[in-house]
């Protein structure tokens, strides 16, 4: 990216006698811009958020770095120009005269307009490619995404078969619950994901708008009531993930966070099957609302059944519903 608007401001107006401001500015700018871009790319980029824990996060890190090296020369040019003019063209004490009347310069104006347009077009093309290729780049894509993640769909999930893992994320004031439809619709209060596996998040809400932000995975999708918002990710490294609510959802919004873990596929499967069989035997699965893409909290199919209360399992059955005010977050 070397296009730069206004490289030679008002050069023609300059008589041979004075210093060649345009050339001077250009040379200083070239050195500074190159240095800044090299620093950004080689020193800063590896540390840029959100890291490289998933494909989406890695793409976002790359995008932020590319935007930074596209933007840095512009910022440096403008700042350099202002500093240069403040130093060189300040009125000396006692100088009461006016500046030279220059009403415009077609060349400079055209260069600037073409330069900014080229940068903008480049950013647009780059952004679109980076949105489409990594299947939505971790962002919420609504109920019927057109940029999908490759992976086979199946109603069951087994490790190392490139089957997409379905995870439903349910936001409610003020907690996150995860359901795994491929494991009998069992639910968990912590997010567990297998590494190197395509994952589809179905994000929805039971009450107000929340936003599911798995920071290290580079996933962000709003949780709207009655809406299934799909986001894709492929975790690429083991580790833990912070999940925060990113949309103001009421007084305990600040306390609406929990953690997830990316584990090996086999570890994931044994965890998931374990939770499933425990919830089966405890009666939780029977008491939960049948798995669906959205839920209507005003309809409680299980009313009248015995509602089990099991430690460590959030929100079974009717317990999903009227938001209660936790005493502590």
């Amino acid at each position, binding site marked *: 990216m070397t296009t730069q608007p206004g490289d030679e401001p008002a050069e023609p107006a300059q008589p041979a006698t004075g210093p060649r401001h345009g050339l001077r500015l250009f040379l200083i700018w070239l050195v500074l811009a190159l240095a800044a871009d090299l620093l950004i790319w080689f020193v800063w980029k590896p540390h840029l958020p959100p890291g490289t824990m998933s494909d989406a996060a890695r793409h976002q890190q790359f995008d932020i770095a590319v935007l930074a090296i596209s933007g840095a020369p512009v910022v440096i040019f403008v700042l350099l120009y202002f500093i240069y003019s403040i130093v060189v063209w300040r009125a000396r004490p006692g100088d009461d005269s006016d500046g030279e009347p220059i009403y415009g310069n077609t060349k400079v104006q055209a260069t600037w307009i073409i330069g900014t347009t080229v940068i903008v077009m480049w950013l647009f093309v780059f952004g679109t490619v980076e949105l489409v290729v990594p299947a939505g780049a971790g962002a919420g894509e*609504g109920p019927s995404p057109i940029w999908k993640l490759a992976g086979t769909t199946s109603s069951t999930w087994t490790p190392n078969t490139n089957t997409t893992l379905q995870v439903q994320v349910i936001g409610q004031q003020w907690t996150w619950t995860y359901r795994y439809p491929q494991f009998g619709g069992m639910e968990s209060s912590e997010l567990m994901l297998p590494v190197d596996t395509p994952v589809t998040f179905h994000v929805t809400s039971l009450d107000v708008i929340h936003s599911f932000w798995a920071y290290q995975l580079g996933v962000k999708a709003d949780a709207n*009531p009655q809406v299934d918002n799909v986001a894709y990710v492929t975790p690429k490294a083991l580790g833990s993930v912070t999940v925060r609510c990113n949309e103001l959802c009421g007084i305990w919004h600040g306390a609406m966070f929990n953690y997830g873990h990316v584990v090996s596929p086999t570890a994931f499967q044994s965890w998931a099957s374990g939770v499933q069989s425990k919830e089966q035997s405890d009666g939780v699965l029977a008491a939960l609302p049948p798995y669906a893409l959205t839920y209507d909290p005003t309809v409680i199919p299980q009313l009248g059944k015995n509602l089990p209360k099991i430690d460590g399992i959030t929100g079974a059955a009717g317990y999903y519903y009227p938001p209660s005010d936790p005493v502590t977050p």
Partner: protein
Amino acid sequence: MAIETHQDRVEPAGSGPPLGGPGGVLRPWWLRPGVHVGVIGAAVGYILGHLLGNFLSSAYAQNALSDSNDVPIVLGYAFGTIGWLAGLGVFNDLGRQMLGKPLLAEVRRGAGETGLSKYFRYTLDHKVVGIQYLFGMIAYFLTGGLFAMAIRSELLSPSYHLLGPNQYLMVVGEHGTMMMMMMSSVILGPFGQYFGPLLIGSKRVAFPRLEALGFWLTPAAYVILLSAVLFGGFPTGWTGYEPLATQATQGEDAYFFAFGLMGLSMILAGFNMIVTIINYRAPGMRWSRLPMFVWSMFTVSFLQVLAVPVLVGACYMALMDRTFQTAFFENQLGGSSFLYEDLFWFFGHPEVYILALPGFGIVAEVVAVFCRKPLFGYKVAAAGMLGVGILSFFVWQHHLFDSGINPDMRPLFMLTTELISIPTGFIFLVAMGTFWKAKIRFSIPMLFALAFYFNFLIGGISGVFLSDVPADTTEHGSFFVMAHFHYTIMGGLIFAFFAGVYYWLPKMFGIKLNERLGKLHFWTMFIFFNTTFLPLFALGLMGMPRRVFEYARNLETLNDWVSISAFCLGVSILIFLVNFVMSMLFWREPEVSNPWRARSLEWQVSTPPPPENFNRVPVILSGPYDYGVKDALPVADLDPPPGVIAAAYAGAPGEEAYR
């Protein structure tokens, strides 16, 4: 306005009919409409509205947290506002017209009122309205700033310690809403109303009643918004997202009502400004001679007239949802929470340019004057403003990139958002071209203008990161966005506002603000603004969402740094306040009528400007930026021979009046 007569046009508010009513006797001050009657009217109106609401909705469920539901509150606000306006005398002329009685002169007199009392009445002089706006908006700004201090105090610690979660959200909501309401009028109000007509060579504005009404709605909105505190505030922040807003307690009514009221004020101000600029330009004030500030007012007014009705509609629908249990925004009842997001941001994005454009206008004026050069690329600057204004209607979905609304259109909205940086870049091109071989004077307005370009550059470039959908996945809704819009709005608009204050206050009041304190104010504000908001970009990228009172412990050091900087920023605003109050009330150092040797029209009249701005309608002879031009004509002939004006108005209705 059919009721305006030619007589009005010739004799604007301030001269005209003899003092007093039809009998020729001026009633005593306490019998004339004014703020004191308005307050009584508001109280009576609120009580009536509340009783009516209780009567209408007695069968509705009572809210558990108070002894009444939302209907009496909303009706109380509505009737209270009407009572406030009635007490101010807003409807007097209207009533007299309908009854066929002659108009009372006293209401319209403004400039004829002695002393300070004209500032506390429904005065129809645009200069009085401008000064009313100036003080009103400073009050808004200081209140919003105090809330900001409270937010930063809470964020000193990663867990809640000072404010409970409820108070924290109340403070966040009040800060955001108050600032947003204030920013939309902070330049258009004081400087637009005061200098708009002066800059185009007009003796008056087109619709003085609408203009004054626009101002007098803002104190009502202020009080109503603050009244939310009595109900425990509102938990939705300044965006008021549904369905959280329907779930909230009565504080939310105050939010919607006050925001809607401010919207109404913006629409009225916009109408008046558009018609004034189109129709009330002096002869010779061609579009190509219009000062940049007027261009910015013109563009902003269109944005206000076209975008703000959507806000008023959304607020109305939300209030209906809350009071009469309609379900516009209730997903489970057939409504849509997406609809609110769409409506809000369809207003909300033009709104942020309603905030930014006046700043562009002021700094363009200031840069030309203190570079002692013509504005570089005048047409580019005007095109930049129009381009920003038009494009601002096509970008609103970028606030909803992760929401799941219409996700396939994201590349389009990414494109429109990035396109808007082209006309915004024009603003920088104009400044940079003007700086080329200039004779730069570092007066205080110029320092603020320079800081504007610095801050807006950072704000603008961070906007490019946000416009990119993949990068936005991390940045959306985090402190990164917060830093971005504080850089563009506070770093842009408020710095431009202060440039305007230091630039124009000598003309408005004939006094000089203390220069040493002014420089101290500038440097502290510039430094602490940047130390406050620059780290917020990092905080956002490191995973801190907006509007939270709890954050990761490793972010504490940075947050403490930001909070301490924010307190210093608050001190800097106090320095301004001390300077402002002392210079205005006690030091009162007189200033010459054109201290900056500026060419534009407002500096050519006496200080402060005479009641009618100009003794005769001036004839504009040349553009406002012809600095350094040998044998440049003066910008206007302030005392043109009678025949010139008559010729200019030949064929126009009321032509004979100018002979």
